[in-house]
């Protein structure tokens, strides 16, 4: 071994008032190595990475950079050393353009025009196309992540930390990103790669450190491990297996969308064109697609946050619901879990109890317009227990929970409110393996009870695992639905890229994705 490790952590510990985030964590990353950091939500991965990036200061332990001990006090210092980080939660200003956001994050001044050009070049060459003049609030989640990745790449880092980078990318884009990362690795840039997607880690990473409850629970060469063995290292127990018997096909059509066209209010948004679909009781209908192809617009139309002019465009439980607001649609049995949990699906500074009231206020928790605090608490407690939400109880503020736990709470809340139709967007985005498989199993169980479920997701594995029928949205147009068991990953890829399938998919093709997906 000639060169010293690019990064070495020795005995890092970080204590918060209520929780130990890291305890005696050590790891080593060599130049050009792609090193995976694995762990469930709340295992301390993000805190550890923030310590490396200078956002938090560890209480104990040493950090060595190229063999020399360093004290990283700020992200600016980290960037000066050559450390770049792509956060899981984006640190972007909504009201500024892509270029302005990136220039703010750069430590030295840039000519805006030249910077915009460079952004375009770098993003193109890495397969992450971006229009540098768009405002961030108009970007989809997937596109926002591109901004973060491109921002780091512009600084030519020596160590790139990526926190869940692929959760919002298409398979093709993931391929491209992996090519990019491999190229960076060949150029000698080290990569610390945080992900829940074990298959990806096995494919991409040279080594892995697994965290559980703040401590290192193992190190491995992911290429030698199976996804199952890695997952077990993370959660320390056998994962529940998602059961997937064939769907009923005789259920009533509970959610029908007919020729839904609308112009997006957002100048950079996607117009919906003639979208039609129908979800039957007892089936899970999946919508795949690259983010920014009209998913947001469709979901706003379905939830009632942006109602239609024509009532007959959307039927819920047989009732024309196009002109109804979300509260009225809830009365027809629709429940909706949005992609953004904090700020839309939940009120961050309110307690979990009050967050139960957010969509449950017309049920048993209130009487004649007055709140029944006891029942509200009971409901909240029930949701916390049934869905295994890790939190400080019903009085904990929603924002004090980790992303996965907020999601479990919101899903739990909507399910306990007895849905007949459930629309759910990115059900397991940023959720750890254990919780993700639990949420998927819950959806399948719900299907068995005769609920009509519409899942919009950018994770194909997930869609193949749970859906009965699949359609692809591209440029605001929804494809024909295909039976999930009869369509291949490649065919979906073609549809996502805007192509079309010559014939209906042959029914006897083996469903590869179904078996290889999650453990």
């Amino acid at each position, binding site marked *: 071994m000639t060169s010293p490790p690019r990064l070495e952590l020795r005995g890092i510990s970080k204590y918060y008032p209520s929780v130990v985030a890291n305890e005696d964590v050590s790891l080593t990353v060599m130049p050009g190595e792609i090193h995976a950091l694995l762990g469930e939500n709340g295992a301390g991965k993000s805190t550890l990475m923030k310590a490396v990036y200078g956002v938090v200061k560890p209480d104990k332990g040493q950090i060595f950079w190229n063999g020399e001990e360093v004290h990283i006090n700020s992200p600016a210092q980290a960037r000066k050393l050559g450390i770049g980080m792509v956060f899981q939660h984006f640190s972007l200003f909504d009201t500024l353009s892509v270029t302005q956001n990136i220039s703010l994050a750069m430590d030295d001044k840039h000519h805006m025009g030249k910077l915009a050009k460079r952004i375009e070049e770098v993003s193109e060459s890495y397969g992450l196309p971006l229009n540098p003049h768009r405002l961030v609030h108009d970007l989809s989640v997937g596109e926002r992540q591109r901004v973060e990745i491109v921002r780091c790449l512009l600084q030519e880092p020596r160590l790139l930390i990526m926190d869940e980078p692929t959760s919002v990318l298409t398979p093709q884009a993931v391929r491209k990103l992996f090519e990019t990362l491999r190229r960076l690795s060949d150029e000698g840039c080290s990569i610390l790669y945080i992900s829940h997607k074990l298959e990806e880690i096995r494919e991409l990473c040279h080594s892995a450190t697994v965290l559980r409850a703040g401590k290192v629970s193992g190190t491995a060469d992911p290429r030698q491990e199976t996804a199952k063995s890695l997952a077990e290292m993370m959660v320390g127990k056998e994962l529940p297996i998602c059961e997937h018997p064939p769907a009923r096909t005789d259920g009533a059509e509970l959610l029908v969308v007919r020729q839904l066209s609308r112009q997006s209010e957002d100048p950079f948004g996607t117009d919906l064109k003639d979208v039609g679909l129908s979800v039957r009781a007892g089936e899970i209908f999946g919508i795949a697609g690259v983010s920014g192809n009209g998913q947001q617009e469709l979901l706003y139309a379905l939830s009632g946050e942006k109602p239609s002019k024509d009532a007959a465009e959307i039927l819920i439980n047989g009732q024309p619901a196009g002109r109804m607001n*979300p509260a009225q649609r809830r009365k027809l049995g629709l429940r909706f879990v949005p992609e953004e949990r904090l700020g839309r699906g939940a009120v961050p500074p309110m307690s979990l109890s009050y967050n139960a009231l957010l969509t449950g206020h017309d049920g048993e928790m209130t009487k004649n317009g007055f709140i029944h605090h006891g029942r509200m608490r009971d409901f909240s407690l029930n949701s916390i227990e049934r869905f295994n939400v890790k939190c400080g109880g019903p009085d904990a503020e929603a924002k004090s929970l980790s992303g996965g736990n907020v999601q479990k709470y919101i899903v739990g809340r909507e399910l306990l409110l007895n849905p007949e139709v459930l629309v759910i967007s990115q059900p397991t985005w940023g959720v750890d393996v254990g919780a993700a498989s639990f949420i998927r199993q819950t959806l399948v169980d719900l299907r068995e009870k005769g609920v009509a479920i519409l899942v919009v997701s950018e994770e194909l594995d997930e869609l193949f695992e749970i859906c009965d029928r699949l359609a692809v949205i591209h440029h605001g147009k929804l494809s024909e639905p295909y039976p999930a068991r009869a369509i291949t990953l490649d065919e979906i890829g073609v549809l996502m890229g805007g192509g079309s399938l010559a014939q209906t998919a042959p029914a006897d093709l083996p469903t590869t994705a179904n078996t290889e997906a999650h453990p």
Partner: protein
Amino acid sequence: MIKLTPRPQPSQQMLWLSPLLAIALMLVVGMIVFTLLGQNPLKAFHAFFIEPVNDLYGIGELFIKASPLALIALGLSVGFRANVWNIGAEGQLTMGAIAAGGVALWFYDSESHFVLPLMLIAGALGGMLWAAIPAFLRTRFNTSEILVSLMLVYVAELVLSWLVHGPWRDPDGFGFPQSKQFSDSALLPVLLEGTRAHAGLLITLVALAVTYVFLRWSVVAFQMRVAGLAPRAADYAGFNAKRTIWIGLLAGGAAAGLAGTSEIAGPIGQLSIPLSPGYGFAAIIVAFVGRLNPIGILLASLLMALLYLGGESAQMQLALPAAVSGVFQGLLLFFLLATDVLINFRISWGGGRPKPAAAAPQAVAKPVMEGEQ
């Protein structure tokens, strides 16, 4: 060196300690100001804070000053919790007083028991009408209710000025800008012999109970708070955003209109200018010092009333300018805003290594509007 480090969760303790700390700081700086003005600080303190309330009459005065402040602050707090910023309570008070005064003058010769209730209704409606203008413009054209409600204060004051200089001027009033003295049927009865404490206090107490119940138990108040804290969550849940704005503004308008009515039907007994010593603006401070909480508002209104009385007493006894009340009010709000930082941050002194908290960058990128609880 002093450092501010973010707390993992807002401190509930500090939420209530912060106003007390602000009061303490206000007193300290106030004493320094007295000293600089050449006064004995203890004597000045006595004149300012003890003298005005050391007899029954003084206590009564305290209550009749606190009453409109609390009433308006209660109404405003309903809107403030939903991020509806009604800054124009002073104008709504004036409009309420004009409407109620109009009723009193119209029924000048009547001895009916219905004059007073009619005045109260007219007063509340007058205040609501004035608050409805910013509400309509906000919901229809998305104008800023802050600017509209504030500017309407001056319009209301000019309307009052025109009335008492013109059509409603007392013909026997030696040309002073004031209306006739109201007849007895239009005056609130005095509650306690030997004081000027009038039945307007009861209105405030009823408002206190109603607001308390509304904020704690009603679904509508919950929905309004969601709209204030996370507007997109309110959309997601299907709450009516326009209703929030209307209720938020009308509650403040009604309260201010009632306060204006009980002023003219109470201690003043006529329409005159100036009508209020800035109750509508001081009530904003009262609402925030009281943490937008009904009980807190009650306590804060007593403090603010004491500042008014203290200012008058200091004028008489120490020959200090009337502005000294305003100085104390300003100090109080100033220090409150400063000490409120401690709700979300803790102070640590250099030397010992401060515990750095998780200052995630998204907290910088997207400042969360911290709603008052």
